């Protein structure tokens, strides 16, 4: 600031300030991403490298962790393995190098598919129901609307796990125990309140005139909703979907309690990967890396909307 009478426009900070701000952001990003890098690196380490102290930054990458993740193996004597025919595949070779024999595939693919089906299923359902409910609350005179909105919010006030036992008994009785549909319904029920509240805020911000214009332009209420409201609510819907997915994707306690073999998702499964002796960190890291991927892809795919969604209202004129 050399000239007091001609200050820089607010939108243009000085180059130094810019560089400092950028450095701070980069530093924070590095700190934030470090655990993820650590997990990613561990997934490609051998068991010995994974627990080496001091930690190894440079190491020979191996797929041992992934092979352990996707297969069930038994330990055999060196002599027994020597008598076997030579390994037919690269993963068999990796196992045998450590005196292990592959007995069959593990259930990780099943668990991963369960996570995808339950996570995305409940997200789609919660967002769909939330959008319709939010639109109704936003646009129509609903009797006791404020009380109903509070009731919907109140379902979030109690930690869900507090009702775990009644839900367990109910699910047993209803035949929903250890079913994907049961988990989808449960996560939807938890998420829908968040979805209604978030989306009502977004839809409230969309001026009614747009729909009214569509109504006088010859469209029905439903057409106006689809052609005018939805395209403008897309940002809010995307942001809501991300929040819903993050919850149901990461949920651990209910899944542990309400599933056994059929509908188990990744979070309760990952701890079991560690294996006998609790040493197989590369396999855990491999499972975690795999578990992280969909949410990373989903968030990156919707990141434009997410950013706009979070700052919604602030940037509108």
């Amino acid at each position, binding site marked *: 600031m050399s000239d007091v009478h001609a200050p820089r426009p607010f939108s243009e900070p000085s180059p130094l300030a810019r560089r400092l701000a950028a450095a701070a952001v980069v530093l924070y990003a590095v700190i934030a991403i470090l655990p993820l890098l650590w997990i990613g690196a561990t997934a490609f380490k051998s068991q010995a490298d994974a627990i080496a102290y001091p930690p190894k930054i440079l190491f020979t990458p191996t797929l041992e962790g992934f092979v352990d993740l996707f297969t069930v193996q038994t330990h055999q004597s060196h002599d027994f393995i020597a008598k076997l025919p030579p390994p037919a595949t690269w993963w068999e070779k990796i196992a045998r190098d450590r005196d292990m024999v592959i007995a069959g595939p593990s259930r990780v693919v099943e668990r991963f598919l369960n996570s995808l089906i339950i996570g995305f299923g409940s997200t789609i359902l919660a967002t769909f129901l939330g959008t319709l409910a939010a639109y109704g609350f936003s646009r129509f005179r609903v009797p006791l609307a404020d009380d109903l909105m509070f009731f919907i919010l109140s379902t979030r006030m109690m930690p869900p796990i507090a009702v775990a036992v009644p839900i367990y008994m109910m699910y047993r009785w209803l035949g929903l125990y250890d079913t994907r549909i049961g988990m989808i319904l449960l996560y939807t029920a938890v998420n829908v309140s968040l979805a209604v509240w978030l989306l009502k805020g977004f839809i409230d911000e969309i001026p009614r005139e747009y729909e009214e214009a569509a*109504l006088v332009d010859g469209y029905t209420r439903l057409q106006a909703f689809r052609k005018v409201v939805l395209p403008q609510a897309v940002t809010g819907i995307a942001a809501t979907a991300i929040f819903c997915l993050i919850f149901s994707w990461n949920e651990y306690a209910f899944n542990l309690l309400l599933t056994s073999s059929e509908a188990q998702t990744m979070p309760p499964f990952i701890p079991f990967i560690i294996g006998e002796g609790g040493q197989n960190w590369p396999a855990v890291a491999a499972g975690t890396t795999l578990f992280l991927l969909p949410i990373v892809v989903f968030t990156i795919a919707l990141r434009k909307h997410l950013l706009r969604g979070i700052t919604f209202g602030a940037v509108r004129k």
Partner: protein
Amino acid sequence: MAEIRVEHLHKAFHGFVAVQNSNFVIEDRTFFVMLGPSGCGKTTTLRMIAGLELPTSGRILLDGADVTFKRASERDIAFVFQLFALYPHMNVRRNIGFPLVSTGMKRAEVKARVEEAARILRITDLLDRPVSGLSSGDRQRVALGRAIVRRPMAFMMDEPLGALDSEMRDVMCGELRGLHDRLKATTVYVTHDQTEAMSLGDKIAVMSHGVIEQWGTPREVYDRPASVFVADFIGSPPMNLLTFHDGLQPGRGSVRVGEADIGIPAPREAVTKRDLILGVRPEHVRLSDAARLRGEVFGTEYLGTTQIVTVTTPHGVTRARLAANVKVSIGEAVGLEFRPDRISVFDAASGQAIRTALHDHPHPMEHAHV
């Protein structure tokens, strides 16, 4: 094109009466302006005609057909919103074509109609632009384009110039009137701006508290206000209102305001002695030393060709529109003279105008003195 008939229209929200028993007819091809302060029910009336709001009771007839409870989409009425309501996720072309798409019209015809509308509004070069980058005047033109493109029976406009700056408003005001003269479409236009109402409207309805106070040509409304509210709302500065106590007899063309006898158009009804209000437009006030109605100059406002001189009298403040070269000084004692044939008299209690010779002819200006 259509005639719009509104019968006993009534609208209440939670006990608040927005529109009270409105009755009026908008003739085919008329530019009809509903004028009034905010909250007077003009927008609610407009929205009921368009079908965006349902009346509590009453009927709305569009070319003789009862549309009172029909959906907005079934009424063939176009609506122009104050904040344009252009769909932000569509470009100009798709915005204008949107009403046609709902009718299932062929794409080639939609294209032709959109381009025709754009040509009329001179926005052809904007057709492929997103609406977000447009100036407010252009947005308004696009909104008008969306309204005219399907050639509806009538246009509803809710303060369409309210969001424009004053310069743009003058331009668009001229364009709107020009558009109406070309399309000859029945138009209902809502505004709180009397200048807009006067310059645009063939007919004006002045509303207050859900009631239509008066309904007529701009000239009728200006020259023969039906109530104190209209007299005070229309005109800048508004009509001077002087309170006095007297009675009226048919044929006796004068009243006593304090010490002064003031000539008025001959009353057509007898009124017993009571509180009355004399209404006179500033341009019908002159300063005259001989006049018995006296006052003191409070201030002057120079407007170029004219000046507004404010005079305090025992009966109320009076403003006179005088030639700019008349010399008056503040504090000076002056006499006031009114042009007798243009005076309105109101009953102070009801606020309604009392029938006088002023109301004899349908168009007073055509019979006006030179």
